[in-house]
């Protein structure tokens, strides 16, 4: 188990390195020039050269890459003129745009993504698994049709539309909730919760569909299993049969998808939701960084998101090992 974990984590590190490398070189293949962008609209070649130098973009790609890797392990110092910016290990670089160490920005944006992603994930997991289970148990009846219909609705609506609609209804029209935005939980737990209700709801509506359907089909399969019949034959109450024996087995495929979703949500994949509700998370940071050709931030957000997806994978495998005793981690 411990050796397995070490091996997996080493593999994660390797994957991260590969992702970094690819992102790095794709960036230079793009037509946009961060120096030109920083320089402004009327930019003279000499000014451009200076800015290139101050951003370190005048060095060869391989040197820049090497510096980046070195910074990751040992930290770096930036800025040679107006200010020295120390960027301690693990240094993901300093934003071209804001001159802030990327990691600092990521860490300050992270609580928003964590709150948004984790909160929504818990909700859509519980609701999706619940609805899916009810639908499976009541297969073909009204409850099943309602659950499947609800799920279909969620799958067919646009996240953007749902977001705006919820804002309109709950904030603008009925004024049940205050104008949205992210308030750190440490500052104001009630405000944190209120501000996240609509973003959570939006994500839940969209993700619920898949979880309901996945749970339903998985549960239907399990309900047909011999061991469920055994459970009933023992005289167990129906709820124990479904919730203990059924769900335990039906949940495994759901866990896999859930792990991926949580990983990518926490890593900042809920860009549209962030943008509609004015939550400044890593997703928006990533999109902005691409538009601003802000290489260090592009690298940082990519790495950050990838880390969570890959780590989620490891966690899923570990959880799998706990849930299914037939899986041996070695």
């Amino acid at each position: 188990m411990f050796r397995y974990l070490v091996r997996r984590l080493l593999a994660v590190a390797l994957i991260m390195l590969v992702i970094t490398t690819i992102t790095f070189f794709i960036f230079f293949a793009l037509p946009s020039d961060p120096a030109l962008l920083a320089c402004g609209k009327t930019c003279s070649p000499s000014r451009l050269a200076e800015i290139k130098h101050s951003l370190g973009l005048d060095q060869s790609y391989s040197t820049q890459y090497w510096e980046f890797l070195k910074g990751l392990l040992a930290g770096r110092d930036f800025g040679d003129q107006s200010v020295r910016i120390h960027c301690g290990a693990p240094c993901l670089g300093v934003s071209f745009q804001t001159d802030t160490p990327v990691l600092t920005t990521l860490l300050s944006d992270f609580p928003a993504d964590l709150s948004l992603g984790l909160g929504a994930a818990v909700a859509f997991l519980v609701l999706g698994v619940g609805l899916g289970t009810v639908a499976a148990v009541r297969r073909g009846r009204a409850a099943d049709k309602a659950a499947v219909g609800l799920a279909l609705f969620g799958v067919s609506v646009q996240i953007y539309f749902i977001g705006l609609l919820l804002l309109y209804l709950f904030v603008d029209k009925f004024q049940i909730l205050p104008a949205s935005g992210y308030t750190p939980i440490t500052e104001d737990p009630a405000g944190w919760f209120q501000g996240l209700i609509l973003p959570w709801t939006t994500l839940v509506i969209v993700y619920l569909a898949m979880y309901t359907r996945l749970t339903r089909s998985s549960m239907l399969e399990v309900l047909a299993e011999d061991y469920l019949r055994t459970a009933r034959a023992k005289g167990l109450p129906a709820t124990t049969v479904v919730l203990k024996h059924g769900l335990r087995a039906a949940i495994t495929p759901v866990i896999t998808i859930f792990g991926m979703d949580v990983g990518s949500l926490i890593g900042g994949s809920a860009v549209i939701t962030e943008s509609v509700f004015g939550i400044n998370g890593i997703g928006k940071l990533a999109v902005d960084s691409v538009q601003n050709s802000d290489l260090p931030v592009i690298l940082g957000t990519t790495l950050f998101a990838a880390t969570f997806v890959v780590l989620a994978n490891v966690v899923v495998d570990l959880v799998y090992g706990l849930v299914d005793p037939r899986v041996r981690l070695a």
Partner: protein
Amino acid sequence: MTRTPRTPRRSRTAALTASAVLIALGATACGGSSGTGGSGGTGAPGKGGTLTVLDKADFDHLDPQRVYTTEGSSMDEEIVRTLTGWDETGSAPKLVGDLATDTGTPSRGATVWTFHLRHGVKYQDGTEVTAPDVKYGVERFFSSDINGGPPYAAQWLVGGAGYKGPYQGKELGSIATPDKYTIVFHLNQPVADFNETTAMPGWSAVPKAHDTGSTYDTKVWSDGPYMIKSYAKNKELVLTRNTHWSQSTDPIRQQNVDEMDVRFGQDESAIDQQIKADVGTARTSVQQWPIAGSDLAQLANDPALKSRYYKIPAPGINYLAINTTRVKDLKVRQAIEYAIDKTTVRGAFGGSAYGDYATTMLSPGIGGYRRFNLYSANPAGNLARARALIKQAGNPRPTLSIAVENTPTQEHFADAVKTSLERIGIHVNISPIDAANYFSTVDNTKNQYDLTWGDWIADWPNASTVLPTLFDGRLIKHNPQANQDLSYLNDPKVDALIDQAARMTDVEQRNAAYGRMDQQILKDAAVVPLMYMNFSDMSGSGVGGIIPDTILAEPSLVHVYVKH
């Protein structure tokens, strides 16, 4: 001045339908929600309260020497005082002294400009603003760390070419501070409207002790009515009263609200919807980014919003450049001028709320503007003339490329151009370019198209910040990666007029020269002016004192207050 083309690339189509539907929904569900009290400067300004400013994205920069967007410049007006400034309470903007006692004194054929500073202007720590601080501020322009700002200091100040900024302890000799309250700029050429340049945010004081170099964006040291209380980049900027500011030294600003809470990162349509609904904090909110194109027609025609809807004419132009080195035949270019149907073009950009049809490159309100129309009197075009001109050119039936941003708006625009030109036998190939990289692509001389879309907003309302930048053919080879002459026009007549106007110190004479220049460019049929742009913004019904700022095309907050 640029409005950074930050069109959201994702979910744009969704944005169009979704928000249009919802905005319409709002119109039926709560039409007439406001109704109480107009703003626009009526009523006595109340004191106190918090103004919320809703922005789609953070300012690129707030550092006065780096800011070059209208949103950032407008916000800087609250924090930073410039040598000169615009008093916009009258019918037309009036240049006044801001830090300076007056609008400056030119001498030696407008190559030397002298400004005297007001006494008793205080920073947020109570210390007094002095001429060396202004000198230091302007010197910051030259550092490559302080990038992104306008180029004028480097272009005009003597010795600017070799100067690398103040951080290595070097000063720029062409800025003299003979005493604490006097600052003198020595220019390498006559600049008759230099005192309009100095109304830009960078011509301001930065105290050396509080300069944090490239991280100054979030730590701008205030000498205006408001100072930074907290600034979480990309999240929230909170401004609070600068208690050391005094109304008696400031001819432009007021200090009515207690705080300004600037929130970044919400989607444009969500902001539009919120301010329209006018409840909660939205009641005391104002937007700086213009209303989303998809919401514009709806909101512009909503009578309930009239009192808090600001249609602000920008000193700017939306145009189609014709590459004169690729479309060499003047007759073909003139035929294009006649053939373009500006009504469908404007429809693509959002209709009449977007702006008026343009016939000149200079827009009304810009010094040098002269009203004329060399081509079709009907904005829908004059097909007969266009066909006649094509015939005279020998019916070449060319295929032309057109570069536009890859947004639905611009692709509709390209379709309108294509339809227009096909009527006279010109085939058009549309090249959509990634919106975020649009200008860096088309500004690179390696990427040339026959037709190129562009827009331009003057840095100050004078032709000198429009025509020389966009049409001086001699600059093309100097800035191969940042060429602004999208027509690749290199007309000796235009170049001569540029040089002539530059030497003129009499503003009237100079404006006349720019008017002739505008006409010459249109005679060359180098560009099809499409629309004089407007920018539209809204505020909540609890906001008063908004002044439509036609210099920046922003809702100016200098007199803003919230109603109680």
